Structure formats: structure tokens, C-alpha cells
């Protein structure tokens, strides 16, 4: 039971990072990234290739994942030049599918459907089984905290205010002198890099990655996390990811209780439960569990009049 809890929390940390990353893209800037899983997968494979194929230390693997994820984000941005609306949604969807096919078919690099074996783990030597699991959880939570601190600081800054303005009506910041395209690009690259970091962590945790790990299902969970938690609010993204992962992972318990259902049916049932939660939240709290704050964040008091 203890091990099970640690496993759920470890997975949750990965989803927290993904939800935070999507929050800077969609929640703050309004960028429709339907290809979350593509950047996640790119990070996972990049990191695996660095540590296993090239024999580099794990920190370099993570760094490479972040850089390649960011570059992929930049490339996708430039492909959908203005980074706006439906066009971006379609390009990102295409990107994720292309990546999945690449993972599947570029055998020489990814070992294809047989799976890519990753021996390197984010642990120190000499720990027991239980301690290792806790250590990995600690590393993941630390990573999630760093991502949270960075993105939360940006969200609350004047930089974040420009992103929100772009989300609301991009013509306004544009006519006030803000280079909207450059801001969209930065938000998208930043989010993509964080998604790739999540992929890297995941890869070194599960130790075998196959193209099947990178299907739309992941993206759906991340989107649900953000909508349930509260798009535009970094704390909301964290809460949403925790709630959705807890339900999704927690419902694994259903399988032994419902032996009359096939595993596929149980898996569908888990999505039905999360989907129901989504409907309830959207119906009764359309802004999510923790809605975005509208009142100014920093409200320095007026300077008292002299004399």
C-alpha cells in the first residue's frame, strides 16, 4: 500500500509539471496545444538516448530533453506562423501524431514498438527498494516545485500580464507596442521545454518507454487537469493534476472489484469517472476549482501625499 501511494504521487508529480506547462501556454496565453504528448515523448526519448545510447549522465539527459523540447516548440510555433487559434491546434495535433509514428518506426534510434530500455535512474547508489522509490519521488517533487516557482513567478509578473492580455484580445497589446508574436513564441517554447522535462523524468522512472506511452490519452488527462483545476491559475493547475491523477490512478482498484468487466472496459470506466468529474466542475465551477485571480496581484499602496 505504501509503495502504491509512492507510485501514485510520483506519477502525479509528472502530471503536475505537464499541467503547469500547459497552463503557461493555454491558461495564460490562450495557445491551443493539443500535442502535449508529442513534447512529452520527445523529452522522454531524448533523455533516454542521451543516457543509454550516448552514455551521458542523467542531468545531461534532462537538460538535453529541455533543450530539444524547447526547440521542437519553437519549430512548431514557426510552422503555424501566427501561433493563433485553430491552426495551432491542428499543427500541434499533427506534431504529436508524427512523433508517435517516429518513435514507432525509427527503430535504430528508439527501438520501435519493442520499447526503449532505460537503466539510468535519478537515484544515488546503495539505497534499498523502498528508499529508492521515496528518493525518486523526492527528486520528482523537487522538479515539480522548481517548475512551479519559475512559471508562477512569470505568471504573476508584468510578463505574465502581457500573456493574459494576448489571451483576452491580442489587438490590444499589439497596439500598445507589445510584440505579440515574440511573447507567444516564448510562452510556447517555455511550456514545450517543461513538457519535455516531464517526459524525461517519466522515462527514467518507468525505465521502458514504448510509443504506446505517448498517445492522446496523456494529453486528455493533462487538459482535464487544467480545466478542473483552473486555467490561468498555477496553483489550480497543481490541484487539478493531483485530483485527476488521484482519481485515474486510484481507480485501478476497481479492476479486482469488477471482475465481470474486461480490462479494456475498466480502463474506459476510469475515463468515464474523470469525464463525469469534468462535466460536474464545468457545470458548477466553470472557472475550475481554483479560478484565476483578477484583482491585481501586487498592489503597492498609494504613496502617502507629502506634507
Amino acid at each position, binding site marked *: 500500500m505504501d509503495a502504491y501511494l509512492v507510485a501514485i504521487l510520483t506519477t502525479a508529480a509528472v502530471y503536475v509539471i505537464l499541467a503547469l506547462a500547459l497552463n503557461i501556454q493555454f491558461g495564460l496565453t490562450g495557445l491551443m496545444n493539443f500535442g502535449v504528448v508529442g513534447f512529452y515523448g520527445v523529452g522522454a526519448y531524448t533523455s533516454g538516448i542521451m543516457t543509454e545510447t550516448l552514455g551521458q549522465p542523467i542531468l545531461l539527459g534532462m537538460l538535453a530533453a529541455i533543450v530539444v523540447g524547447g526547440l521542437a516548440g519553437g519549430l512548431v510555433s514557426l510552422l503555424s506562423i501566427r501561433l493563433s487559434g485553430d491552426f495551432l491546434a491542428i499543427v500541434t495535433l499533427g506534431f504529436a501524431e508524427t512523433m508517435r509514428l517516429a518513435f514507432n518506426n525509427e527503430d535504430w534510434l528508439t527501438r520501435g514498438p519493442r520499447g526503449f530500455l532505460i537503466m539510468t535512474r535519478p537515484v544515488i547508489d546503495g539505497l534499498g527498494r523502498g528508499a529508492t522509490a521515496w528518493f525518486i519521488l523526492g527528486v520528482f517533487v523537487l522538479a515539480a516545485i522548481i517548475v512551479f516557482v519559475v512559471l508562477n513567478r512569470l505568471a504573476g509578473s*508584468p510578463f505574465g500580464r502581457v500573456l493574459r492580455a494576448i489571451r483576452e484580445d491580442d489587438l490590444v497589446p499589439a497596439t500598445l507596442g507589445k510584440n505579440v508574436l515574440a511573447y507567444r513564441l516564448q510562452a510556447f517554447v517555455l511550456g514545450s521545454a517543461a513538457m519535455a522535462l516531464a517526459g524525461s523524468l517519466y522515462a527514467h522512472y518507468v525505465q521502458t518507454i514504448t510509443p504506446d506511452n505517448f498517445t492522446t490519452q496523456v494529453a486528455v488527462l493533462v487538459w482535464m487537469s487544467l480545466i478542473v483545476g483552473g486555467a490561468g491559475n498555477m496553483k489550480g493547475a497543481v490541484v487539478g493534476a493531483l485530483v485527476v491523477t488521484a482519481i485515474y490512478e486510484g481507480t485501478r482498484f476497481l479492476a479486482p472489484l469488477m471482475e465481470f468487466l474486461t480490462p479494456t472496459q475498466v480502463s474506459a470506466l476510469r475515463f468515464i469517472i474523470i469525464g463525469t468529474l469534468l462535466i460536474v466542475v464545468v457545470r458548477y465551477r466553470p472557472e475550475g476549482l481554483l479560478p484565476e485571480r483578477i484583482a491585481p496581484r501586487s498592489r503597492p499602496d498609494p504613496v502617502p501625499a507629502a506634507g
Partner: protein
Amino acid sequence: MKPVRIEVDGLTKKLGGVAVVNNVSFQVDAGQIMGLIGPNGAGKTTMFNLISGVLRPDAGKLRVNGRDVTGLPPYKLARHGIVRSFQLSRELDRMSVLDNVLLAAADHPGEHMANALFRPFAVRRAEAKLTEKAREMLALVALTPHEAKPAGTLSGGQKKLLELARALMAGADTILLDEIAAGVAPHLVEEIIEIVQKLNRDLGKTFLIIEHNVGFIRALTSRVVVMAAGELLAEGSFDHVSRNPAVIDSYLGQAA
């Protein structure tokens, strides 16, 4: 002779196959308050869209301070010192009134990602200073009590005032106001007239103003250009053009 701030030189824009602005030329001198008047559908707002870079002209040239800026995107025109308000106010609904104004600050160090991440104290200091300035702008347009509200909850007239506060906050040397007084309470219209005069007199700001309110135009502008059906109809002082038969016919006749 005063330097020319904006030079509109044969600008033409077709929308839906119709020349909504057709070969129009005029200029706005630095430090002038100029009116742009004409009946609904004359192409005045489209002219603002051309001058602010929101639309690219099909023909003609736009020069600001003598530099050719034809076809530049809006953010670059803003950096040439031109800022505009919108006829249908475009407040950022889900942001506070204060944030709407703060967004307009030019050169805010905190709008750069690196500063926002690594220089939080410098950013906070700049933000505090600019917040003070933004509050002054809000006080000018009597929106102080509303600063923490989402801008979407303001009334129509208040939204126009917010547009004005934002344009002032941007600190541009040339301000384009598109029917800023429409739907605003009369005592605030008087207030707007005073603000514009003060900015023009004390800070030398240049204004180009679209307005149907004759009193407003007469009180503020030294010169007006009249547009009708996409064409330039007349140009001169308001009293001068208001005696022009073509202007009376197409515009003032209906207003009176």
C-alpha cells in the same frame, strides 16, 4: 513651420471589394489637435486602422515623423509614438481595471522574461512606480473606485474612459481617439476636453480625434478633415468646413 507628425499620402484600402478609404491624403502637425469627422461609414475608423497598422493599405504611403512606416505591424507603430483607442472599446474583460492600464506602460522592465525571473526586486520597484502613474491616469478619468474590478464589469461609458486612460498611460506623443466621448456622461465629456487640452498644452501631445459631438470637436480641434464615402471631402478649421456646402450636404445637414 511645425514638423509634420503623421503624413497620410494617398492611402487606399479595399474591404469586401469596396474602396472604404480611397486615395486620402492629409497631414497632422506635431502638437496639433486635429479632428476627423464625417458620416457613419465614411471610413474614419478604417483610417485609424491604417494609421495604427491594424490594417495594411492597398496603396499609398504612411509617414510618421518623416519616416516611411507603411505596412509596419501595430506594435512597431506604437513604438513610433502612435497609440489609439477603439471605437468599440476593447477592454480586457478578465483583467482588473488597473492591470488594463498598467499593460499600456512602455518599456516596463518586468515585461522581459529574464527580468521577471531573475530581477524580481527591480521589477517590483518598477511596478510600484508605474502603478502610481496608472492610478493617476485612473484618477483623471474618475475610475479610481473601480481599479480592482474586472474590466468586463464596467459600463459602456466607463469602458471608453478606460480606453482613454490606457492611451494616456502609454505615453505616446500622438494619440488617436475614436469616438471617445460616445456614451460618456456629460460632465465627464467636459473632463475629457480638459484632459486633452492640458496634455496638448503642457506636454505637447498631438491628437487626432474622431467624434460626432460637434461641441467636442469645436472646443478641441484647430483643424478638421472631413471624410465621406471613403474620400477626403474638405479640410480646414471647423468653422470653415462647416460652411462648405458639400459637407453640410453629406454630414452636418443630417446632424443638425
